[in-house]
């Protein structure tokens, strides 16, 4: 059961994950453990399996083999599920609704009690308060990305999954996002994000993993190792 007041932190464990699309392997026996409060940056070329791994973590795609397990810092209910926030490559918001309507819609679906107040606070946080009543289709890509990020943060996620979260954001937006991710991580939120190259956001990462052809080929948590992984992917 998900509960917005649940103070537990959550970790995520991928066990021998395989994903096949017909004869094509998107992921090959990926085993990875991301501890509570850790921020893992996934790097790799296009088609290396980053998005697939994130979608499997978000439980939007089923692995062909293997499993994903969530761990809680508080033992108890076996049916416990963490609150997940997911920012995909697509914005996952409706163009025909305003920024505020989009967020209120998802807040209500997630069963958030004081939806209006939380949405107002988030709109202020992502810098869209002035444009809250504008249709999303009138927004630039960067503004849409801000709405997408706000949507993912609605439920105060214990695990945040980000697929190239800096897409479309200007330097100011990137700096804001990096700062916000840092404070989320410090509050115990587990972050798994795919990145291309080094940026303000990659500074938040505590660990980097490189995927190549669906397999983990490098894993580092020291500064030099992480830089090597992230710059290789961005090259």
């Amino acid at each position, binding site marked *: 059961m998900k509960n917005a007041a649940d103070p537990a932190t959550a970790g995520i464990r991928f066990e021998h994950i395989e994903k096949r699309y017909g004869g094509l392997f998107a992921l090959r026996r990926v085993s990875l453990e991301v501890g509570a409060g850790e921020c893992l940056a996934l790097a790799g070329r296009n088609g290396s399996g980053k998005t697939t791994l994130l979608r499997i973590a978000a439980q939007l795609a089923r692995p062909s083999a293997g499993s994903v397990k969530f761990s809680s810092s508080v033992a108890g209910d076996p049916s416990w599920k963490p609150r997940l926030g997911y920012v995909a490559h697509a914005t996952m918001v409706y163009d025909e609704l305003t920024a505020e309507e989009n967020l209120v819609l998802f807040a*209500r679906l997630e069963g958030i009690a004081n939806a209006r107040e939380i949405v107002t606070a988030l709109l202020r946080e992502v810098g869209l308060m002035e444009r809250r009543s504008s249709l999303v289709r009138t927004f630039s890509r960067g503004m849409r990305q801000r709405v997408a990020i706000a949507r993912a943060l609605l439920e105060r996620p214990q695990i945040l999954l980000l697929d190239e979260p800096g897409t479309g954001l200007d330097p100011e937006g990137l700096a804001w996002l990096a700062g916000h991710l840092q404070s989320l991580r410090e509050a115990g939120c587990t972050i798994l994000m795919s990145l291309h190259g080094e940026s303000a956001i990659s500074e938040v990462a505590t660990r980097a993993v490189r995927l190549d052809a669906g397999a983990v080929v490098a894993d580092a948590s020291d500064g030099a190792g992480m830089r090597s992984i992230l710059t290789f992917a961005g090259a």
Partner: protein
Amino acid sequence: MSLLSNTGVLLGKELRTEFRSRELLTTTVIFILMVVVLFSFTFDPTSADSRRFGAGLLWLAFLFAASLMLQPCFLREQTNDTLSALRLAVSDPFAILLAKLAANTLFLLVTELLMLPVFSVLYNVPVLPVLGRLLLVFFLGSLGVSIAGTALSAISAQARMRELLLPLLLLPLLTPVLVASTQVTAGLLDVAPFMQWKGIGFVATFDVVFLTALWLFGEYLLEE
């Protein structure tokens, strides 16, 4: 959050986006009126002719209007991958399907209600005396079309030849409910109108069976 409240929130979203874009209603209303007007001018039917083939014409128009309406219902969720956002947000994925089918049924009924007076005037068939019973047939028939159509729209939206796949799967599946609805409607358009309760029972059973199947297997329709 309960299934019904999630469905209510999603239905509100469907109505709001539709009334803003008017994408589905405009297309179907124009199409259905064109069919009725064109047939009327082509055949210039007498009242007796209309009573004989009017029911078939009505349901044929409803079917084509429905297939126009059903095609984009899940495609719209793919533009920004909003279906994934909905799957993450709702506790029961059946709410997504339930809201879609409620919206489709509602839009189809609105289209049918707009067409009915035009049909009555052009084909010289009085519908007011049987309006209540006619609405019951339209509701049950449209619900059947929407249940099967929503399920197939969810399947075909992820397929490569989606434009071809939906009508290909939908038409044979809907044949029984369309035949029954047409027969009941024909009875109501008769000079001495009568209700074929057996036909109504058949359509209602079709609705219950398909709605149950959708409830049991709907989750798999929304998966990648």
